[in-house]
């Protein structure tokens, strides 16, 4: 089916199978591979995008549903070469190891800071609780979000 998505501030026209997920359309039709596949069930956070201001699992949205929303992916966080504060903070805190879960964490953190510019640690942990990391950078990621907020 033909759809017009709004991704990272631009209109993107695609022609995809009826039940295609937003995740597969981002990765396979729009070459936005920064959004990662992790579980396909909304349980790990690797595929999070910001949809109308909220961090959501793009594997659980169909592209058709997403067509009615403003979508921001990790590629849309920076303004040109100017990184978003959470991107800068994650790099500065070295809050990553393999980096596979990083995109999803950045999305959760950016969505949090947009609605609460100075969250406490509990709010940060809650906002990122849907992002699983197997390398174990949770402590650094909390510090990175705190740094981005300050």
């Amino acid at each position: 089916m033909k759809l017009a998505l709004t991704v990272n501030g631009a209109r993107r026209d695609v022609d995809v199978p009826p039940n295609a997920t937003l995740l597969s359309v981002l990765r396979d039709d729009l070459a936005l591979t920064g959004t990662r596949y992790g579980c396909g069930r909304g349980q790990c956070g690797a595929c999070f995008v910001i949809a109308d201001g909220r961090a959501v699992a793009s594997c659980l949205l169909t592209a058709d549903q997403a067509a009615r929303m403003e979508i921001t992916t990790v590629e849309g966080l920076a303004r040109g070469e100017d990184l978003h504060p959470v991107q800068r903070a994650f790099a500065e805190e070295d809050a990553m190891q393999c980096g596979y879960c990083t995109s999803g964490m950045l999305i959760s953190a950016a969505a949090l800071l947009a609605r609460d510019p100075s969250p406490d640690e509990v709010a940060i942990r809650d906002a990122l609780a849907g992002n699983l990391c197997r390398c174990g950078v949770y402590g650094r990621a909390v510090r990175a979000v705190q740094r981005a907020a300050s």
Partner: protein
Amino acid sequence: MWDRSDPERLEQRIRLERDGTVTAFSGKIDFGQGIRTAFAQLVADELDVPIDRVHVVLGDTAQVPFDFGTFGSHSIAQETPRLRKAAAFARRQLLERASAKLRVPVDRLDTDRGTVVERGDRRIPYADLLNGTPLTGAVPDQLPLMPDSRRRYVGQPLPRIEARDIVTGRATFVADVRLPGMLRGAIVRPPGRGAKLRSLNDEAARKMPGVVAVIREGNVVGVVAEREEQARAAAAAVEAEWHLVPVEGPSADVPMRSDAGVDRALARASLRLAQTYVLPPIANAPIGPSAAVADVRPDGATMYVGTHRPFGVREQVAKTVGLPEDTVRVLPQITSGSYGRNSHPDAAIEAAILSKGAGRPVLLQWTREEEFAWSPSRPEALLEVTAGLDPDGRILAWKYDEHTNVHTAAGLDPQVLSVTSGRNAIPPYGPFAAKVTLHLEPTRLRTANFRSLAAAENVFAIESFMDELAAASGQEPLAFRLRHIEDPRFRRVVERVAERSGWSGGTMPARHGRGIACTVYHDTYVAQVAEVEVTMSGQVRLLNVWCVVDPGQTVNPDGVRNQIEGGIQQSASWTLLEELRHRDGRVVTTGWDAYPIATFNDAPAKIEVLVEGDATRPPTGVGEPGAVPTAAAIANAVYAACGARVRQLPLTRERVRKATATG
């Protein structure tokens, strides 16, 4: 064939480019350990160039020297001397070339950030010394290295080179590779491991939208289609009948240490204690399931993979698709951390079969369910330990039987088994007589590499038991350990972690407790203290962890901290939460709901890691050691908090409550 027994060749390690940048080559792989950054630090210092001019190529079989694999926290230990010597040799050649060009003796020349300088102020950029003649030659084994005083980068906590690509989403993970004409694959899975295909009906699948082919080779059946959704839908529509053939892992008995007089000493000990510890199988559980891109052509193949063993993948793929090995190029990509899982190139082999069958490049992305169900797991372990103390409370004798399944595909040679499936079974304490035996037992579960192999299991048992021995003989756990530690470096990390965590001072709130554990893992010394709170219902909350590590000379202290913190966090997860369940080898916990791991809400308030490497000692690895003592530190803290000695992982609420009741 470039073999590790050959002398190192400069051109295989360091290449000076025409633009003055430097390319360094290593067969090791970076899964997030930060070795790319550490290697750049080492080379930049030794060759005296700014670090942003150093580009590190890892694992590309067409470019890097042979490497057996990235295992056992060996990357820094093995590659540091090789890269340093090669870079030093390159620098010496550049000085010699400048000497000839300027007609001045070498001793009047020096280097300064990518240029050769003469005392009279003449400067020649390295690139101007190339003249189309690359730097080559056998790297001498003995040559002077850059003195520490002139090393700018080694020892500095530099951020990861890949950081910007990762935070912008630009980093190309395996599943992000896009090739012209590339198809998507999906595998038709049998009901169990080792099943043989009896019959296949793919008529309906072939007619489905987007399907290009259904491919069968031996017992591998897969679909290739234009889109992933289409490949998956068609794979589900393939009707296959299978014949189940049970597959079992190997068995063996390996005496690892057999001192005389152990049984006699145990018989006459004034205090004898015997306990059994149990760990369940666990999943490597990478956040990114396995993936591979294969481009198999009649005359050769290119493989884009995540692997610990690029040269091993080359050999296996070549054999699978019937190509000479030298026509296969393996190009490792950035890959999800896999903690040993990528030692087995399952997705790569399958993708190669599909690509060969389709005659086009194929991306195969495993699903989450496939990853849990078909990956190898860390084996279960049952550890029996008996020790006897003399009247003064010192250990006289130690008997240890490790029962587990095979931990690697490295082979069943007793020497190999004792350092793989039996890793760290010999206690780091002494002096006493010890008998340590590894019993490898068969299992239908597919088992293989997980971070530190058997070390984390053995150290859980040994360090829990050290606490139990101390308690049984009325000794303080820290003092009891120190009485049995002879190595001064080991002593120091244990004393330092006690100091740092305030081990001997202050009182704990009710139901809070601290536990200590320590080990020596491949010459890295590590000691940890964990602090927990145990609720009335037996729920364990990890509050704080302190760790002191001595990995010898430290290339990147923040990289070391990150690795150790991660190891602690990951081990806390499996200590408190994880158990892979299977029926006759078929994994039933195939999603994050059935196999929960620690989340942001489970992470402790603080993990403090002090990197206190002995700078006079060669660098050792840090990828695994931090993960090794954590389970025992937590279990010992639970005991201190509420008197519950739990000898079986994970430390669930039910087990803790039951152990509290029985004291």
